Protein backbone atom coordinates (compact mmCIF):
# COMPACT_ATOMS: atom_id res chain seq x y z
CA UNK A 1 0.00 0.00 0.00
CA UNK A 2 2.73 2.43 0.98
CA UNK A 3 4.62 1.31 -2.12
CA UNK A 4 1.68 2.21 -4.29
CA UNK A 5 1.31 5.55 -2.55
CA UNK A 6 5.02 6.23 -2.94
CA UNK A 7 4.73 5.31 -6.58
CA UNK A 8 1.99 7.88 -7.00
CA UNK A 9 3.76 10.61 -5.04
CA UNK A 10 7.32 10.12 -6.32
CA UNK A 11 6.77 11.71 -9.75
CA UNK A 12 5.18 14.76 -8.10
CA UNK A 13 8.55 15.91 -6.79
CA UNK A 14 9.24 17.09 -10.32
CA UNK A 15 7.63 20.41 -11.13
CA UNK A 16 7.41 19.49 -14.82
CA UNK A 17 5.40 16.42 -13.89
CA UNK A 18 2.95 18.46 -11.82
CA UNK A 19 2.54 20.97 -14.64
CA UNK A 20 2.05 18.12 -17.08
CA UNK A 21 -0.66 16.56 -14.93
CA UNK A 22 -2.47 19.87 -14.56
CA UNK A 23 -2.29 20.44 -18.30
CA UNK A 24 -3.55 16.94 -19.06
CA UNK A 25 -6.55 17.32 -16.75
CA UNK A 26 -7.54 20.74 -18.07
CA UNK A 27 -7.11 19.66 -21.68
CA UNK A 28 -9.11 16.53 -20.98
CA UNK A 29 -12.07 18.50 -19.66
CA UNK A 30 -12.09 21.03 -22.51
CA UNK A 31 -11.72 18.33 -25.17
CA UNK A 32 -14.51 16.37 -23.50
CA UNK A 33 -17.07 19.14 -23.75
CA UNK A 34 -16.26 20.07 -27.33
CA UNK A 35 -15.69 16.43 -28.29
CA UNK A 36 -19.27 15.62 -27.30
CA UNK A 37 -20.47 17.81 -30.16
CA UNK A 38 -17.80 16.44 -32.49
CA UNK A 39 -19.04 12.90 -31.88
CA UNK A 40 -22.77 13.67 -31.96
CA UNK A 41 -22.49 15.71 -35.14
CA UNK A 42 -20.14 13.32 -36.93
CA UNK A 43 -17.29 15.83 -37.20
CA UNK A 44 -14.40 13.52 -36.31
CA UNK A 45 -12.77 13.87 -39.72
CA UNK A 46 -13.18 17.63 -39.60
CA UNK A 47 -11.47 17.74 -36.20
CA UNK A 48 -8.61 15.60 -37.45
CA UNK A 49 -8.21 17.75 -40.55
CA UNK A 50 -8.30 20.97 -38.57
CA UNK A 51 -5.63 19.76 -36.16
CA UNK A 52 -3.32 18.89 -39.06
CA UNK A 53 -3.96 22.05 -41.00
CA UNK A 54 -2.61 24.31 -38.27
CA UNK A 55 0.87 22.89 -38.77
CA UNK A 56 1.92 25.44 -41.42
CA UNK A 57 0.93 28.30 -39.09
CA UNK A 58 2.92 26.78 -36.26
CA UNK A 59 5.83 26.25 -38.68
CA UNK A 60 5.86 29.88 -39.79
CA UNK A 61 5.79 31.02 -36.16
CA UNK A 62 8.59 28.62 -35.39
CA UNK A 63 10.78 29.87 -38.24
CA UNK A 64 9.99 33.55 -37.65
CA UNK A 65 10.69 33.24 -33.94
CA UNK A 66 13.92 31.32 -34.52
CA UNK A 67 12.67 28.30 -32.60
CA UNK A 68 11.16 30.19 -29.66
CA UNK A 69 8.22 28.30 -28.15
CA UNK A 70 6.38 31.22 -26.52
CA UNK A 71 4.63 32.82 -29.53
CA UNK A 72 3.70 29.47 -31.09
CA UNK A 73 0.40 29.36 -29.22
CA UNK A 74 -0.76 32.54 -30.94
CA UNK A 75 0.38 31.39 -34.35
CA UNK A 76 -1.49 28.15 -33.83
CA UNK A 77 -4.60 29.97 -32.62
CA UNK A 78 -4.68 32.32 -35.60
CA UNK A 79 -4.18 29.51 -38.09
CA UNK A 80 -6.75 27.28 -36.42
CA UNK A 81 -9.50 29.89 -36.47
CA UNK A 82 -8.73 30.81 -40.07
CA UNK A 83 -8.59 27.16 -41.11
CA UNK A 84 -11.82 26.20 -39.29
CA UNK A 85 -13.84 28.94 -40.95
CA UNK A 86 -12.00 28.42 -44.25
CA UNK A 87 -12.71 24.70 -44.46
CA UNK A 88 -16.35 25.41 -43.70
CA UNK A 89 -16.62 28.04 -46.44
CA UNK A 90 -14.66 26.19 -49.14
CA UNK A 91 -16.43 22.88 -48.69
CA UNK A 92 -19.78 24.60 -49.22
CA UNK A 93 -18.74 26.31 -52.45
CA UNK A 94 -17.13 23.48 -54.38
CA UNK A 95 -18.68 20.70 -56.36
CA UNK A 96 -16.71 17.97 -54.59
CA UNK A 97 -18.13 16.42 -51.46
CA UNK A 98 -17.39 18.07 -48.15
CA UNK A 99 -15.16 15.30 -46.80
CA UNK A 100 -13.16 15.26 -50.05
CA UNK A 101 -12.62 19.01 -49.96
CA UNK A 102 -11.58 18.75 -46.32
CA UNK A 103 -9.13 15.96 -47.16
CA UNK A 104 -7.54 17.92 -49.99
CA UNK A 105 -7.02 21.02 -47.87
CA UNK A 106 -5.81 19.23 -44.80
CA UNK A 107 -3.26 17.02 -46.50
CA UNK A 108 -1.94 19.98 -48.47
CA UNK A 109 -1.65 22.20 -45.41
CA UNK A 110 -0.03 19.42 -43.41
CA UNK A 111 2.58 18.82 -46.14
CA UNK A 112 3.27 22.55 -46.30
CA UNK A 113 3.86 22.58 -42.54
CA UNK A 114 6.29 19.67 -42.73
CA UNK A 115 8.08 21.27 -45.67
CA UNK A 116 8.51 24.55 -43.76
CA UNK A 117 9.75 22.90 -40.60
CA UNK A 118 12.16 20.71 -42.54
CA UNK A 119 14.07 23.84 -43.60
CA UNK A 120 15.20 24.30 -39.99
CA UNK A 121 18.25 22.47 -38.69
CA UNK A 122 16.89 20.82 -35.54
CA UNK A 123 13.75 19.87 -37.29
CA UNK A 124 13.25 16.23 -36.31
CA UNK A 125 13.02 16.96 -32.59
CA UNK A 126 10.73 19.95 -32.98
CA UNK A 127 8.55 18.31 -35.57
CA UNK A 128 8.09 15.37 -33.21
CA UNK A 129 6.92 17.76 -30.51
CA UNK A 130 4.36 19.36 -32.79
CA UNK A 131 3.13 16.03 -34.09
CA UNK A 132 2.95 14.04 -30.88
CA UNK A 133 2.95 16.63 -28.12
CA UNK A 134 5.33 17.47 -25.33
CA UNK A 135 3.20 17.62 -22.23
CA UNK A 136 6.20 17.48 -19.90
CA UNK A 137 7.54 20.62 -21.54
CA UNK A 138 4.51 22.69 -20.52
CA UNK A 139 5.57 25.96 -18.86
CA UNK A 140 3.69 28.07 -16.29
CA UNK A 141 2.80 30.48 -19.07
CA UNK A 142 1.40 27.60 -21.14
CA UNK A 143 -0.71 26.51 -18.18
CA UNK A 144 -2.16 30.00 -17.85
CA UNK A 145 -3.03 30.07 -21.55
CA UNK A 146 -4.67 26.64 -21.32
CA UNK A 147 -6.69 27.79 -18.31
CA UNK A 148 -7.85 31.07 -19.88
CA UNK A 149 -8.79 29.68 -23.29
CA UNK A 150 -10.18 26.49 -21.82
CA UNK A 151 -12.42 28.57 -19.59
CA UNK A 152 -13.52 30.58 -22.62
CA UNK A 153 -14.57 27.38 -24.38
CA UNK A 154 -16.43 26.01 -21.34
CA UNK A 155 -18.24 29.27 -20.61
CA UNK A 156 -19.30 29.66 -24.23
CA UNK A 157 -20.73 26.16 -24.31
CA UNK A 158 -22.52 26.78 -21.00
CA UNK A 159 -24.00 30.03 -22.29
CA UNK A 160 -25.34 28.51 -25.50
CA UNK A 161 -25.97 24.98 -24.27
CA UNK A 162 -29.62 24.76 -25.29
CA UNK A 163 -29.00 26.37 -28.68
CA UNK A 164 -26.17 23.94 -29.47
CA UNK A 165 -28.35 21.06 -28.34
CA UNK A 166 -31.24 22.01 -30.60
CA UNK A 167 -28.96 22.72 -33.57
CA UNK A 168 -27.18 19.40 -33.18
CA UNK A 169 -30.31 17.33 -32.71
CA UNK A 170 -32.72 18.96 -35.14
CA UNK A 171 -31.39 21.71 -37.42
CA UNK A 172 -34.72 22.02 -39.25
CA UNK A 173 -36.51 22.71 -35.99
CA UNK A 174 -33.80 25.24 -35.10
CA UNK A 175 -34.51 27.00 -38.38
CA UNK A 176 -38.24 27.20 -37.64
CA UNK A 177 -37.30 28.71 -34.27
CA UNK A 178 -35.30 31.39 -36.13
CA UNK A 179 -32.10 30.49 -34.36
CA UNK A 180 -29.14 32.11 -36.14
CA UNK A 181 -27.83 28.74 -37.30
CA UNK A 182 -24.88 30.10 -39.26
CA UNK A 183 -23.60 32.05 -36.29
CA UNK A 184 -23.75 29.02 -34.02
CA UNK A 185 -22.19 26.72 -36.64
CA UNK A 186 -19.29 29.14 -37.02
CA UNK A 187 -19.01 29.54 -33.26
CA UNK A 188 -18.78 25.76 -32.84
CA UNK A 189 -16.00 25.59 -35.44
CA UNK A 190 -14.12 28.31 -33.56
CA UNK A 191 -14.58 26.43 -30.29
CA UNK A 192 -13.18 23.28 -31.88
CA UNK A 193 -10.26 25.32 -33.21
CA UNK A 194 -9.49 26.85 -29.80
CA UNK A 195 -9.76 23.44 -28.15
CA UNK A 196 -7.27 21.97 -30.59
CA UNK A 197 -4.78 24.77 -29.97
CA UNK A 198 -5.17 24.44 -26.22
CA UNK A 199 -4.51 20.70 -26.48
CA UNK A 200 -1.66 20.98 -28.97
CA UNK A 201 1.13 20.62 -26.47
CA UNK A 202 -0.45 17.70 -24.65
CA UNK A 203 -1.10 15.24 -27.47
CA UNK A 204 0.15 16.99 -30.60
CA UNK A 205 -1.38 17.37 -34.03
CA UNK A 206 -1.41 13.73 -35.05
CA UNK A 207 -3.18 12.35 -31.97
CA UNK A 208 -5.52 15.27 -31.43
CA UNK A 209 -8.58 13.63 -32.89
CA UNK A 210 -8.34 10.89 -30.27
CA UNK A 211 -8.76 13.42 -27.46
CA UNK A 212 -11.76 14.92 -29.23
CA UNK A 213 -13.45 11.68 -30.12
CA UNK A 214 -12.42 8.71 -27.97
CA UNK A 215 -13.59 9.80 -24.48
CA UNK A 216 -16.83 11.22 -25.92
CA UNK A 217 -17.48 8.01 -27.87
CA UNK A 218 -16.88 6.03 -24.67
CA UNK A 219 -19.41 8.11 -22.71
CA UNK A 220 -21.84 7.93 -25.64
CA UNK A 221 -22.00 4.17 -25.19
CA UNK A 222 -22.82 4.47 -21.48
CA UNK A 223 -25.20 7.44 -21.15
CA UNK A 224 -28.54 8.52 -22.56
CA UNK A 225 -28.54 12.25 -21.97
CA UNK A 226 -26.30 15.03 -23.21
CA UNK A 227 -25.19 16.58 -19.91
CA UNK A 228 -24.29 13.25 -18.23
CA UNK A 229 -22.49 12.32 -21.44
CA UNK A 230 -20.39 15.50 -21.24
CA UNK A 231 -19.67 14.96 -17.55
CA UNK A 232 -18.64 11.34 -18.02
CA UNK A 233 -16.52 12.30 -21.03
CA UNK A 234 -14.71 14.87 -18.88
CA UNK A 235 -14.05 12.32 -16.14
CA UNK A 236 -12.75 9.75 -18.63
CA UNK A 237 -10.54 12.25 -20.43
CA UNK A 238 -9.08 13.80 -17.28
CA UNK A 239 -8.47 10.39 -15.70
CA UNK A 240 -6.87 9.10 -18.90
CA UNK A 241 -4.58 12.12 -18.87
CA UNK A 242 -3.39 11.36 -15.34
CA UNK A 243 -3.12 7.59 -15.83
CA UNK A 244 -1.38 8.08 -19.17
CA UNK A 245 1.21 10.39 -17.67
CA UNK A 246 2.02 7.99 -14.84
CA UNK A 247 2.33 5.17 -17.36
CA UNK A 248 4.63 7.33 -19.41
CA UNK A 249 6.72 8.16 -16.32
CA UNK A 250 7.20 4.56 -15.31
CA UNK A 251 7.50 2.87 -18.69
CA UNK A 252 9.22 5.57 -20.68
CA UNK A 253 6.52 5.51 -23.35
CA UNK A 254 5.85 8.83 -25.12
CA UNK A 255 3.38 10.80 -23.00
CA UNK A 256 0.87 11.75 -25.72
CA UNK A 257 0.70 8.17 -26.93
CA UNK A 258 0.26 6.88 -23.37
CA UNK A 259 -2.67 9.25 -22.76
CA UNK A 260 -4.38 8.31 -26.01
CA UNK A 261 -3.84 4.59 -25.43
CA UNK A 262 -5.46 4.93 -22.00
CA UNK A 263 -8.48 6.60 -23.63
CA UNK A 264 -8.62 3.82 -26.19
CA UNK A 265 -8.52 1.20 -23.43
CA UNK A 266 -11.45 2.94 -21.70
CA UNK A 267 -13.39 2.81 -24.94
CA UNK A 268 -12.62 -0.91 -25.28
CA UNK A 269 -13.95 -1.58 -21.80
CA UNK A 270 -17.11 0.48 -22.36
CA UNK A 271 -17.70 -1.25 -25.66
CA UNK A 272 -17.35 -4.67 -24.02
CA UNK A 273 -19.68 -3.66 -21.18
CA UNK A 274 -22.25 -2.49 -23.66
CA UNK A 275 -21.94 -5.62 -25.78
CA UNK A 276 -22.52 -7.81 -22.71
CA UNK A 277 -25.48 -5.65 -21.61
CA UNK A 278 -27.07 -6.04 -25.01
CA UNK A 279 -26.74 -9.80 -24.95
CA UNK A 280 -28.47 -10.09 -21.59
Amino acid at each position, binding site marked *: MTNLLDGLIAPLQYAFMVRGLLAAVMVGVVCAVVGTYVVLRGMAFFGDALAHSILPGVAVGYLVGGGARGPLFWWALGTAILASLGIGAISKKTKVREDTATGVIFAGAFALGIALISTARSYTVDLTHFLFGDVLGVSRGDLALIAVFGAFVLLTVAAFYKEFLVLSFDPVFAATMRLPARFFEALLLVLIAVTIVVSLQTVGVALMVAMLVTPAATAYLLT*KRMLPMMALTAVIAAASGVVGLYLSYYTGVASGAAIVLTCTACFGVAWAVQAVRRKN
Partner: protein
Amino acid sequence: MSTFTTPFKSMLTRHHAPHQPGTPILAVSGLTVRYSGHAALDDVTFDLRAGEQVAVVGPNGAGKSTLLKAVAGVLTPTAGAVTVYGQGPGGHICIAYVPQRTVVDWQFPVTVRDVVLMGRIGMMGLFRQPGKRDFAQVRECLDLVGIADLANRQINELSGGQQQRMFIARALAQEAELMLMDEPLTGLDAPSQEGIFQLLRDLRARGVTIMLSTHDLDQAVQYFDRVMLLNRRLLGFGEPAAVFTPERLMAAYGGHLHLLPLNGGLVAVGDTCCGGDHRHD
Protein backbone atom coordinates in the same frame (compact mmCIF):
# COMPACT_ATOMS: atom_id res chain seq x y z
CA MET B 1 -57.54 22.80 -20.68
CA SER B 2 -58.01 26.43 -19.79
CA THR B 3 -54.74 26.55 -17.86
CA PHE B 4 -53.08 25.79 -21.12
CA THR B 5 -54.93 28.30 -23.25
CA THR B 6 -54.55 31.33 -21.01
CA PRO B 7 -50.76 31.58 -20.88
CA PHE B 8 -50.87 30.56 -24.50
CA LYS B 9 -52.78 33.70 -25.48
CA SER B 10 -50.75 36.05 -23.32
CA MET B 11 -47.54 34.59 -24.74
CA LEU B 12 -48.74 35.23 -28.22
CA THR B 13 -49.52 38.87 -27.68
CA ARG B 14 -46.12 39.28 -26.10
CA HIS B 15 -44.01 37.46 -28.62
CA HIS B 16 -45.78 37.54 -31.93
CA ALA B 17 -46.87 40.17 -34.35
CA PRO B 18 -50.57 40.92 -33.80
CA HIS B 19 -53.01 38.60 -35.51
CA GLN B 20 -55.58 40.40 -37.63
CA PRO B 21 -58.98 38.82 -37.22
CA GLY B 22 -60.52 37.72 -40.51
CA THR B 23 -57.21 37.32 -42.36
CA PRO B 24 -56.33 33.75 -43.31
CA ILE B 25 -53.84 32.11 -40.96
CA LEU B 26 -51.66 31.21 -43.93
CA ALA B 27 -51.50 32.78 -47.38
CA VAL B 28 -49.19 31.31 -50.02
CA SER B 29 -48.91 33.00 -53.40
CA GLY B 30 -46.92 32.04 -56.47
CA LEU B 31 -44.63 29.82 -54.40
CA THR B 32 -41.87 28.37 -56.57
CA VAL B 33 -38.88 26.37 -55.37
CA ARG B 34 -36.13 25.28 -57.76
CA TYR B 35 -33.28 22.93 -56.97
CA SER B 36 -30.43 23.36 -59.46
CA GLY B 37 -32.73 24.25 -62.31
CA HIS B 38 -35.52 21.75 -61.84
CA ALA B 39 -38.71 22.96 -60.19
CA ALA B 40 -39.77 21.13 -57.04
CA LEU B 41 -42.73 23.47 -56.67
CA ASP B 42 -44.19 25.59 -59.41
CA ASP B 43 -46.40 28.62 -58.80
CA VAL B 44 -48.42 27.30 -55.87
CA THR B 45 -51.10 29.62 -54.48
CA PHE B 46 -53.60 28.93 -51.68
CA ASP B 47 -54.98 30.16 -48.33
CA LEU B 48 -55.62 28.28 -45.09
CA ARG B 49 -58.43 29.21 -42.72
CA ALA B 50 -57.69 29.24 -39.02
CA GLY B 51 -58.60 25.97 -37.34
CA GLU B 52 -59.05 23.82 -40.44
CA GLN B 53 -57.26 20.56 -41.07
CA VAL B 54 -55.84 19.98 -44.51
CA ALA B 55 -54.25 16.89 -46.06
CA VAL B 56 -51.61 17.33 -48.75
CA VAL B 57 -51.45 14.37 -51.13
CA GLY B 58 -49.47 13.59 -54.24
CA PRO B 59 -47.00 11.03 -55.55
CA ASN B 60 -43.39 10.74 -54.37
CA GLY B 61 -41.36 13.74 -55.46
CA ALA B 62 -44.50 15.87 -55.78
CA GLY B 63 -42.97 18.49 -53.50
CA LYS B 64 -44.99 17.81 -50.36
CA SER B 65 -42.01 18.07 -48.01
CA THR B 66 -40.70 21.06 -49.94
CA LEU B 67 -44.03 22.84 -49.57
CA LEU B 68 -44.17 22.23 -45.82
CA LYS B 69 -40.58 23.37 -45.36
CA ALA B 70 -41.10 26.50 -47.43
CA VAL B 71 -44.18 27.38 -45.36
CA ALA B 72 -42.21 26.72 -42.16
CA GLY B 73 -39.58 29.15 -43.40
CA VAL B 74 -36.83 26.53 -43.39
CA LEU B 75 -36.43 26.76 -47.15
CA THR B 76 -36.13 30.05 -48.98
CA PRO B 77 -38.43 29.96 -52.00
CA THR B 78 -37.09 30.86 -55.44
CA ALA B 79 -40.16 33.02 -55.99
CA GLY B 80 -43.46 33.77 -54.33
CA ALA B 81 -44.49 34.70 -50.83
CA VAL B 82 -45.61 32.96 -47.65
CA THR B 83 -47.45 35.08 -45.10
CA VAL B 84 -48.82 34.08 -41.71
CA TYR B 85 -51.59 36.36 -40.53
CA GLY B 86 -50.38 38.85 -43.07
CA GLN B 87 -46.75 38.73 -41.92
CA GLY B 88 -43.67 37.04 -43.36
CA PRO B 89 -42.89 33.71 -41.64
CA GLY B 90 -39.87 35.32 -39.96
CA GLY B 91 -42.22 37.33 -37.75
CA HIS B 92 -43.93 34.24 -36.42
CA ILE B 93 -42.84 31.33 -34.37
CA CYS B 94 -46.40 30.09 -34.03
CA ILE B 95 -45.67 27.65 -36.87
CA ALA B 96 -44.42 24.22 -35.86
CA TYR B 97 -42.84 21.80 -38.28
CA VAL B 98 -43.22 18.16 -37.26
CA PRO B 99 -40.44 16.25 -39.06
CA GLN B 100 -40.58 12.88 -40.77
CA ARG B 101 -39.49 10.25 -38.29
CA THR B 102 -36.92 8.91 -40.72
CA VAL B 103 -34.83 12.09 -40.75
CA VAL B 104 -34.19 12.12 -36.99
CA ASP B 105 -31.13 10.61 -35.27
CA TRP B 106 -32.88 8.40 -32.71
CA GLN B 107 -29.59 7.49 -31.01
CA PHE B 108 -29.05 11.10 -29.94
CA PRO B 109 -28.61 11.33 -26.15
CA VAL B 110 -31.82 13.16 -25.27
CA THR B 111 -34.88 12.08 -23.35
CA VAL B 112 -38.47 12.63 -24.39
CA ARG B 113 -38.71 15.53 -21.94
CA ASP B 114 -35.56 17.13 -23.37
CA VAL B 115 -37.06 17.10 -26.86
CA VAL B 116 -40.40 18.57 -25.77
CA LEU B 117 -38.56 21.22 -23.75
CA MET B 118 -36.89 22.31 -27.01
CA GLY B 119 -40.30 23.65 -27.99
CA ARG B 120 -39.96 26.26 -25.25
CA ILE B 121 -36.69 27.65 -26.57
CA GLY B 122 -38.37 30.35 -28.63
CA MET B 123 -40.17 31.62 -25.54
CA MET B 124 -37.05 31.53 -23.38
CA GLY B 125 -34.65 33.54 -25.48
CA LEU B 126 -30.87 33.59 -25.23
CA PHE B 127 -29.06 33.04 -21.93
CA ARG B 128 -32.23 31.94 -20.13
CA GLN B 129 -32.67 28.64 -18.44
CA PRO B 130 -36.04 26.88 -18.53
CA GLY B 131 -38.14 27.87 -15.52
CA LYS B 132 -40.98 26.29 -13.57
CA ARG B 133 -43.48 27.48 -16.10
CA ASP B 134 -41.61 25.86 -18.97
CA PHE B 135 -41.42 22.55 -17.17
CA ALA B 136 -45.10 22.76 -16.22
CA GLN B 137 -45.99 23.38 -19.83
CA VAL B 138 -43.84 20.46 -20.98
CA ARG B 139 -45.58 18.18 -18.49
CA GLU B 140 -48.97 19.32 -19.71
CA CYS B 141 -48.07 18.76 -23.36
CA LEU B 142 -46.73 15.28 -22.61
CA ASP B 143 -49.97 14.54 -20.78
CA LEU B 144 -52.03 15.82 -23.62
CA VAL B 145 -50.48 13.48 -26.16
CA GLY B 146 -50.56 10.62 -23.65
CA ILE B 147 -46.84 9.92 -23.16
CA ALA B 148 -46.27 11.53 -19.74
CA ASP B 149 -45.05 8.18 -18.38
CA LEU B 150 -42.30 8.08 -21.00
CA ALA B 151 -40.80 11.48 -20.17
CA ASN B 152 -37.49 10.07 -18.91
CA ARG B 153 -36.96 7.57 -21.71
CA GLN B 154 -34.19 7.99 -24.20
CA ILE B 155 -35.92 8.70 -27.53
CA ASN B 156 -34.64 5.48 -29.02
CA GLU B 157 -36.88 3.51 -26.65
CA LEU B 158 -40.10 4.84 -28.20
CA SER B 159 -42.34 3.11 -30.73
CA GLY B 160 -43.14 4.85 -34.00
CA GLY B 161 -46.46 6.20 -32.75
CA GLN B 162 -44.87 7.44 -29.54
CA GLN B 163 -42.13 9.17 -31.50
CA GLN B 164 -44.77 11.01 -33.49
CA ARG B 165 -46.61 11.96 -30.30
CA MET B 166 -43.41 13.35 -28.85
CA PHE B 167 -42.96 15.71 -31.80
CA ILE B 168 -46.59 16.79 -31.59
CA ALA B 169 -46.02 17.48 -27.87
CA ARG B 170 -43.04 19.63 -28.83
CA ALA B 171 -45.20 21.54 -31.30
CA LEU B 172 -47.75 22.07 -28.51
CA ALA B 173 -45.02 23.27 -26.14
CA GLN B 174 -44.09 25.73 -28.84
CA GLU B 175 -47.65 27.05 -28.58
CA ALA B 176 -48.02 26.60 -32.31
CA GLU B 177 -51.22 27.64 -34.03
CA LEU B 178 -50.24 26.12 -37.34
CA MET B 179 -48.72 22.63 -37.35
CA LEU B 180 -47.05 21.30 -40.47
CA MET B 181 -46.74 17.53 -40.26
CA ASP B 182 -44.56 15.69 -42.74
CA GLU B 183 -46.01 12.22 -43.26
CA PRO B 184 -46.74 11.53 -39.59
CA LEU B 185 -48.72 8.39 -40.47
CA THR B 186 -46.17 6.71 -42.70
CA GLY B 187 -44.80 3.51 -41.22
CA LEU B 188 -47.26 3.41 -38.30
CA ASP B 189 -49.50 0.42 -37.63
CA ALA B 190 -53.29 0.86 -37.66
CA PRO B 191 -53.78 1.39 -33.89
CA SER B 192 -50.99 3.99 -33.80
CA GLN B 193 -52.53 5.76 -36.79
CA GLU B 194 -55.89 5.78 -35.05
CA GLY B 195 -54.16 7.30 -32.00
CA ILE B 196 -52.75 10.10 -34.13
CA PHE B 197 -56.19 10.79 -35.61
CA GLN B 198 -57.61 11.00 -32.10
CA LEU B 199 -54.89 13.51 -31.31
CA LEU B 200 -55.80 15.51 -34.41
CA ARG B 201 -59.38 15.69 -33.11
CA ASP B 202 -58.07 17.04 -29.79
CA LEU B 203 -56.03 19.62 -31.68
CA ARG B 204 -59.12 20.64 -33.62
CA ALA B 205 -60.86 21.35 -30.32
CA ARG B 206 -57.96 23.66 -29.46
CA GLY B 207 -58.31 25.49 -32.75
CA VAL B 208 -54.91 24.40 -34.07
CA THR B 209 -54.64 24.58 -37.84
CA ILE B 210 -53.13 21.45 -39.37
CA MET B 211 -51.44 20.88 -42.69
CA LEU B 212 -50.39 17.26 -43.03
CA SER B 213 -48.82 15.38 -45.91
CA THR B 214 -49.85 11.78 -46.48
CA HIS B 215 -49.80 8.99 -49.02
CA ASP B 216 -53.14 7.63 -47.96
CA LEU B 217 -55.98 9.04 -50.06
CA ASP B 218 -58.69 7.20 -48.09
CA GLN B 219 -57.59 8.79 -44.86
CA ALA B 220 -57.29 12.17 -46.55
CA VAL B 221 -60.94 11.90 -47.59
CA GLN B 222 -62.12 10.54 -44.27
CA TYR B 223 -60.44 12.77 -41.72
CA PHE B 224 -59.72 16.15 -43.27
CA ASP B 225 -61.72 19.29 -44.04
CA ARG B 226 -59.97 19.96 -47.30
CA VAL B 227 -57.46 18.13 -49.41
CA MET B 228 -54.67 19.50 -51.55
CA LEU B 229 -53.58 17.54 -54.61
CA LEU B 230 -50.02 18.35 -55.47
CA ASN B 231 -47.60 17.34 -58.15
CA ARG B 232 -45.14 20.20 -58.35
CA ARG B 233 -48.11 22.35 -59.36
CA LEU B 234 -51.27 22.67 -57.32
CA LEU B 235 -53.72 20.38 -59.12
CA GLY B 236 -56.66 20.93 -56.79
CA PHE B 237 -57.54 22.22 -53.36
CA GLY B 238 -60.94 21.98 -51.68
CA GLU B 239 -63.57 19.46 -50.59
CA PRO B 240 -62.36 15.91 -51.29
CA ALA B 241 -65.24 15.20 -53.67
CA ALA B 242 -64.40 18.21 -55.78
CA VAL B 243 -60.65 17.61 -55.81
CA PHE B 244 -60.38 13.86 -56.25
CA THR B 245 -61.92 13.68 -59.68
CA PRO B 246 -60.63 11.00 -62.04
CA GLU B 247 -59.08 13.59 -64.37
CA ARG B 248 -57.18 15.36 -61.64
CA LEU B 249 -56.05 12.13 -60.01
CA MET B 250 -54.80 10.85 -63.34
CA ALA B 251 -52.97 14.13 -63.85
CA ALA B 252 -51.32 13.75 -60.44
CA TYR B 253 -50.55 10.07 -60.50
CA GLY B 254 -51.00 8.12 -63.73
CA GLY B 255 -49.43 4.69 -63.47
CA HIS B 256 -50.64 2.02 -61.12
CA LEU B 257 -54.19 1.65 -60.02
CA HIS B 258 -55.61 2.05 -56.59
CA LEU B 259 -59.26 1.94 -55.56
CA LEU B 260 -60.69 4.85 -53.69
CA PRO B 261 -64.25 4.83 -52.34
CA LEU B 262 -65.76 8.24 -52.90
CA ASN B 263 -69.40 9.34 -52.78
CA GLY B 264 -70.53 5.74 -52.86
CA GLY B 265 -68.62 5.02 -56.06
CA LEU B 266 -65.10 3.85 -56.72
CA VAL B 267 -62.42 5.91 -58.32
CA ALA B 268 -59.32 4.30 -59.73
CA VAL B 269 -56.10 6.14 -59.10
CA GLY B 270 -52.42 5.34 -59.01
CA ASP B 271 -50.37 5.70 -55.89
CA THR B 272 -46.68 5.13 -56.37
CA CYS B 273 -46.09 5.12 -52.69
CA CYS B 274 -45.12 2.56 -50.20
CA GLY B 275 -42.91 2.39 -47.09
CA GLY B 276 -41.66 5.38 -45.22
CA ASP B 277 -37.97 4.91 -45.62
CA HIS B 278 -37.21 7.08 -48.60
CA ARG B 279 -36.71 10.76 -48.43
CA HIS B 280 -37.71 13.04 -51.18
CA ASP B 281 -37.01 16.67 -50.83
